């Protein structure tokens, strides 16, 4: 999409410490210049996604519903939007540390939604041996097709990113998990497959949630990641196809992560599309570019319909972790009457991590958060499957989300 008149870059777009500001009001920035620097190891810098002038640094609505510090940049309409000439790191001659550093400096994070800094995954602790690299080509949620388009349209870039990762980490094997309903993506990747690397394209069952990290590992390798452990403990590292493509871009053009593919979809939208969107574009501008919303549009969600966040303010910008924007119509967002739990057990069957949502829901209602921890609330990824199948319309996922927030508050208060 074309550059909007203004972009807003929150300093907190990734898991870990927010970036520290490195520009001031009135500064002129070129496309690709950093506006925030990484603060520590689990943090990445933020780069300007368009040339322009910094007009304000202050509170701005963040897609997660809070207000956050953000840099507002008035985009220069007449700028060529060329990036400053930059060194393209020649990856083959680099050591692991230099590759990791280059990826961190480029601000690459997991583009699957959680926005975990990618370079951290590239440098696993020395006492773990990584035997398999898994590339997540399973779309994380219904409606979203951004990973699909990345694979179908940029198979070479994805495979180049895989090559960089495999060689720098010394991983012998790579599996790309793609859901079976994307034959064109599978075909595109197969065709571009290099002969000198052990890369397998593995068609997966189409189900939700398949794109969750631990689900994918189980589907691809058959290994179950123990509760509370990271995938690296079983010798596996998972990367989203979007992140891999972003890594490739770093070593192809030297460009940091300043654009991402966003699925803009839903019945409430006039012209659904997959767009390359500059990070920091306001939802208002994005929806306007898609010819706006229908009169019946009722809800705008960042992410997918299952786990995404409803947005209260269309001034919130697209951030690095924004996989999609879904606009739902009124009849799709109805809220049914909630009936008592009839203990039918459907939520137990639906839960992908084998929890007991019914019991957890009872605990959540009476604020027995400690008991919820004992029932492994931490393993719940808020996929929403339990709430989706519940015949009594109990908003289980929301109860768990609120419980997790309450536990975080207690924890923050205790320390």
């Amino acid at each position, binding site marked *: 999409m074309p550059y909007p008149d203004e972009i807003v870059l929150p300093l907190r777009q990734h898991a870990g410490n927010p970036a520290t500001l490195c520009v001031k009001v009135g500064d002129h920035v070129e496309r690709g210049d950093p506006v925030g620097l990484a603060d520590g190891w689990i943090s990445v810098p933020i780069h300007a996604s368009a040339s322009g002038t910094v007009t304000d640094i202050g509170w701005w609505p963040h897609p997660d519903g*809070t*207000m956050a510090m953000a840099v507002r940049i008035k985009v220069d309409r007449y700028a060529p939007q060329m990036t400053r000439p930059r060194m393209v790191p020649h990856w083959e001659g680099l050591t692991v540390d230099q590759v990791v550093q280059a990826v961190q400096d480029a601000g690459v994070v997991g583009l699957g939604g959680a926005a975990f800094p990618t370079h951290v995954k590239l440098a696993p602790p020395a006492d773990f041996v990584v035997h398999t690299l898994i590339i997540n080509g399973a779309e994380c949620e219904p409606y979203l097709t951004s990973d699909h388009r990345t694979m179908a349209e940029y198979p070479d870039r994805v495979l180049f990113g895989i090559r960089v990762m495999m060689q720098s980490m010394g991983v012998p094997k790579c599996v790309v998990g793609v859901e079976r309903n994307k034959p064109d993506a599978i075909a595109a990747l197969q065709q571009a497959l290099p002969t000198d690397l052990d890369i397998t394209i593995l068609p997966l069952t189409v189900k939700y949630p398949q794109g969750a990290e631990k689900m994918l590992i189980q589907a691809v390798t058959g290994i179950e990641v123990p509760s509370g452990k990271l995938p690296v403990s079983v010798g596996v590292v998972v990367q989203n196809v979007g992140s891999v493509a972003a890594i490739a871009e770093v070593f192809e053009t030297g460009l940091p992560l300043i654009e991402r593919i966003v699925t803009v979809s839903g019945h409430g939208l006039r012209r659904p599309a997959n767009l390359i969107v500059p990070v920091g574009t306001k939802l208002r501008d994005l929806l306007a570019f898609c010819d706006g919303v229908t009169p019946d549009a009722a809800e705008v969600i960042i992410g997918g319909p299952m786990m995404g*966040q*409803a947005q209260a303010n269309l001034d919130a910008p697209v951030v690095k972790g924004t996989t999609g924007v879904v606009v739902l119509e009124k009849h799709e967002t109805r809220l049914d009457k909630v009936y008592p739990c009839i203990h039918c057990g459907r939520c137990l069957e639906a839960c992908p991590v084998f929890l007991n949502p019914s019991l957890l829901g009872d605990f959540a209602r009476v604020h027995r958060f400690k008991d919820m921890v004992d029932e492994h609330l931490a393993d719940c990824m808020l996929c929403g499957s339990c709430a989706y199948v519940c015949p009594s319309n109990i908003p289980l996922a929301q109860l768990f*989300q*609120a419980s*997790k927030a309450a536990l975080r508050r207690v924890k923050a208060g205790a320390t």
Partner: protein
Amino acid sequence: MTLLAILIVGGVGLVFAVFIALANRKLWVWEDPRIDAVASMLPNANCGACGLPGCRAFAEQAVEGIIAPTKCSVGSDDVHKAIAGFLGVAAGTAQRRVARLLCAGGTDVAVSQAEYRGLPTCAAAAAVAGGGKGCAWGCLSLADCARVCAFKAITMSDTGLPVVDPVTCTACGDCVEACPKGLFVLQPVEQRLLVQCKNLLAGDEVLDQCQVACTTCGKCVQDAAPGLISVSSGVATVNYELNAQADRQAVTRCPTGAIVWLDGAQFVRMPSLAGSTEA
């Protein structure tokens, strides 16, 4: 037959009764009888406002002289005096505190930017897009505080703000914990000036979100005693230690009405909240 049954069951019961009686004598632990006496004088609300797990624990510590009777914020002066007199200790200095809400943005003055239709609790709304209110710091009006209040001191006004009754409020702190926006503070009841706003935006853009927000204009600071009111990071704050020098001047100077003079319950001067609890 019936007689036999009665005898057998009765006999078994008698044997166990004797056993229990002996065990009771053998395992008996001496406990200060004053603990029971003090515990019976306490309100027995088990609210935890004193910081102890319950009234019994408070009684134990009071008898040992670890905690002053007045630390029971639920008990009235009479309770404190009775316990102090019974134990022969000083009652301690009582400073009555109440919960105050740091938000005055009811539905009549605060802008609502979206409709929230999820689980009707503040905690859930705060987790989803921060609720529908324009102000990201303001009260969500879904009454989590009123539900947790064991003393029924909080009622929701017509404009969706919780109104604390300073007479029944015991400063137990449950509402402070319940509010996901952290809008409640426990303050000495005689603190006069209060800035009822937590919005950190500075300048007039705050007024797009709420008519009674603190714009950090600093007018209240100018007339006040030095150090009484300070403006920093988006809101004005009042220093309680200089409460004696507090002056109504600050209230009249405030262009938005964010700062108020408290004399009893909050919000009594706001016509829109008339009809809600007034002390």
